[in-house]
Structures are given as C-alpha cells and as structure tokens.
C-alpha cells in the first residue's frame, strides 16, 4: 500500500523522467550532438587563437565554460517543442498533478542527457587545452552544478518561447543574461584553484544558485507554460 502511494506521489516526476530518458535513448544521435558540438568548438580555439600551451592555459577554463553554455543553449530549444507539437504538453497541462514536478522530471532528463555528458567530457578538453592539473576537480564539480543551473533556467526560457515559430533565437536572447552569474562563478571556481586559492566559496555560491533554481525554476516554467502553451 505504502509503495503504491509513494508511486502515485512521484509518478509525475519519475514518469516524465523515465519517458524523456527513453525518448533520448531512442534518438541517441540527437543526444550526442551537444557533446560533439562542445568538442568541435573547443578544437577551433587552438586553431583560431593560439596553439601555445602557455597562452591556452590562461583561457582554458573560461573557454570550456563558454562552450558548455553554448552547447546547453543549443539543446534547450528542443526541450518542449516536440511535446508541444504532438500534443503531449497539453495532456501534461490538463492532468490534475502539480505541474512543477513533471517539469522537474523533464529538466532532470535534459541534464542527464546534455549537462552530465558535457561534465564527463570536460577533463579531456582540459587536457587538450593544457589546463593545470589542479583545475580538473574544480572544473568537473563546477560544471556538474553549473550545467544543472543552465538546464533549469533554460527551461523557463524554453517554456516562454515554446509556441513561437522562431523561438530559438529569442530563447538565447532571454536566457543568456540569466546565465551570466553561473558562468562568472563557474570560471571563478576553476581560476581560484589554478591560482592556488580556496575554490570552495565560489563553488558554494554555485550550489546556492542550484538550490534556488531547483526551487523556483520549475514553478516559473509551469507558469510560463500555462500562459504560452494555451496560446
């Protein structure tokens, strides 16, 4: 009985998480593209900027973070579009469950398929960009927390633009200013570590941003979807 009640309780979250992960698994080609984008653009930097290790070292952390941001932004556009087009988003809106929970499930699935792979690939890029070895752990930690923030905040933007025909460009315009604090503290975490300072304070601020985003972004996204998806 208890387990049944528990299943009912979290069916919104778990069901949409499972569904979106399954969809991602069946379209694994699409899922790989943010990571491939991430790696390809990072290859452009030594080609365009400088191949010298001493100079790359200085820009490594910031560049990896900017790439991660752009890769997330690219994948953000598709978060609700297919659901909006095939009508399952409306089904979600009319179910009696609380909307933020299923949305959190969708966002979690998005992070697991974009943010997490980016985080896992980042040490490799750090190696290629000759990031000092003290920077690896801060890079991975900050990206893990930071990309989760990016997914959560981006979901609000995606919800605001879902019904617009050319929402993708507008989405990046709306969401980019909101991403800036994340990138500030994300790069600060890595550069503090490289400079030999204590890198936990900026990471803690990223953690606080993550906590606030988990609490607020699903609510804002739910409100936005109710406005825009019914339009």
């Amino acid at each position, binding site marked *: 009985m208890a387990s049944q009640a528990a299943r009912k309780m979290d069916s919104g979250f778990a069901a949409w998480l499972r569904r979106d992960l399954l969809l991602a698994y069946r379209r694994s080609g699409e899922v790989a593209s943010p990571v491939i984008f991430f790696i390809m653009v990072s290859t452009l930097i030594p080609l365009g900027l400088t191949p010298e290790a001493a100079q790359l070292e200085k820009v490594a952390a910031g560049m990896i973070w900017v790439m991660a941001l752009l890769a997330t932004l690219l994948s953000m556009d598709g978060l609700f579009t297919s659901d909006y087009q095939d009508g399952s988003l409306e089904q979600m809106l009319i179910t009696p469950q609380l909307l933020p929970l299923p949305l959190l499930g969708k966002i979690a699935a998005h992070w697991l398929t974009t943010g997490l792979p980016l985080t896992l690939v980042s040490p490799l890029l750090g190696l290629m960009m000759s990031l000092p070895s003290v920077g690896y752990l801060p890079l991975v930690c900050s990206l893990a927390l930071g990309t989760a923030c990016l997914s959560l*905040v981006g979901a*609000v933007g995606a919800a*605001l*633009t879902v019904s*617009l025909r050319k*929402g993708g460009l*507008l989405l990046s*315009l*709306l969401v*980019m*200013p*909101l991403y*800036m*604090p994340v990138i*500030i*503290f994300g790069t*600060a975490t890595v550069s503090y570590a490289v400079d030999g300072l204590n890198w936990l*304070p*900026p990471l803690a*601020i990223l953690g606080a*941003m993550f906590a*606030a985003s988990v609490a*607020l972004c699903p609510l*804002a996204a739910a*409100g*936005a979807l109710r*406005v*825009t998806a019914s*339009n």
Partner: protein
Amino acid sequence: MSWLSDKFSNILSGESSKESPSWQWFYRLGSPRWFYQRSGQWLPWLSLAALLVLAIGLVWGLAFAPEDAKQGNSFRIIYIHVPAAFLAQSGYFIMAIAGAIGLIWKMKISYMVMKAAAPIGAVLTFIALFTGAVWGKPTWGAYWVWDARITSMLILLFLYAGVMALQYAYHSVDAASKASAILALVGTVNIPIINKSVDWWYTLHQPATIKLTSAPSMHMDMFMPLLVMIVGFYLFYAVALILHTRNEILRRERKTSWVRELVTAKAGG
C-alpha cells in the same frame, strides 16, 4: 492583524471587498479609464516639478558646484551618469513589481505600466553606459573596461531587451503581458547576484565607482546638486512612465466607448 488576514483572504478568493472604502482606491486604480483621467490631472503638476528640479540641479551642478581636484570639470558628467544609473536599476524593479501585481491581481493597468517601463528603463541604462564611456576616456584612459559594475549594467540592458523582445513576440496581448511579467520576475532574482559579483569577480579591476554609501567622502557642495538631480530624475521617470502608460491605455482600449468619445471630442472640439 486579523483585519489584514481578512483582506488577504478576500484578495486570494477573488472577492472584491467593495464594502470597505479603504480598499476602493486599489480597485479603482485597476481601471484604465480611471487611471487615464486621474493621471491627466497629475501630469501638468508633475511635469512642472520635474522640469523645475532638473533645471535647478543642472545649473547648480554644471555651473556652481566646485571643480574636482583631480578630474577638473570632466567630473560634472556625474550629474547625468549617476541619476541615470540609479533610475535604470529602480526602473527594473518597478517593471517587475508591476508585472507581479498583474500576475497576482490580474490588473490590466499594471501590465500596461510594465510594458511602458521597459523601453524607458532600457534607454536610461543606455544613457548610464554611454555617459560612463564618455567619462571613462579622460579618467581611466579607456572607453570600456570589463569592470563588474559596468558589465552588470550591460547585463541589465540585455534583461530589458529580453522583456521588450518578448512583448513583441506574441500576437495576443494577454500572453505577451503574462509571459514578459514572468520573465521580468525571473530577471529580478538575477540582479542582486550580479551586484554581489562586484565583490568576487575581477577584484583587481575595481576602479572607484561612485556609490551613494560613500557619499560622505564626497564634498557636500558636489553632493547636494547630485541629490537634487536624482530627485529630478525620479520625477522625470514618473512623467515618462505615465505618458507611456497613457499611450498604451489608448492603444489597448481603443475599442471601448470612452476612448472613442475622448478621441472624437478632441477631434471635434
């Protein structure tokens, strides 16, 4: 406290407590027609006050305030720069609060105020950035420095741009209002974070930017006209906001009979 919770539950349940006169102004304020007529009475006085205070502040600041020991006369741009930067930030909160009132109490007029506040705030932010650049050249030797405060103002400009872009993206007025209100509210969370980043980010690059908290370090003869200018900018902001809102009222209510009567009366008389 019980009267307060009574009011609150009335609001939450959507019952207008018309029997209590103390709240009537609040409901009347929600009527675009009432606002249009009433603001028409305020406008001449408010404009006159804004003009007067701005004139006093400008003449005082530009002509009578003492010359700065290090910067000479170039410091005088402060009398435009600081009030503009001030209003650019308060303007964002005014916009976000108007949006929140619209979402919570479903007041038509507050959505109109919100829409009107966006371009005014964006222009003020631009003025602050522009005068900052003009000021930066003689004092820092560069038009642009990636200082935390300057960058945060640029982000503020982007936030305004986002709200404005969303306003124009929707065909339905209702959806545009609600969507941009949500965006404005989400952006509010961003502003304190950006301001806090001054302490952590690029601390090496922290040339003194004038804050009001450090006002006592400024000479009183310089500070007083600045204060007058800030008050003048607030008054000017109120005038600009009311004018934009009135414009928006006429546009959105153009199909109602009172607007038609107003327009035909103006055209006829």
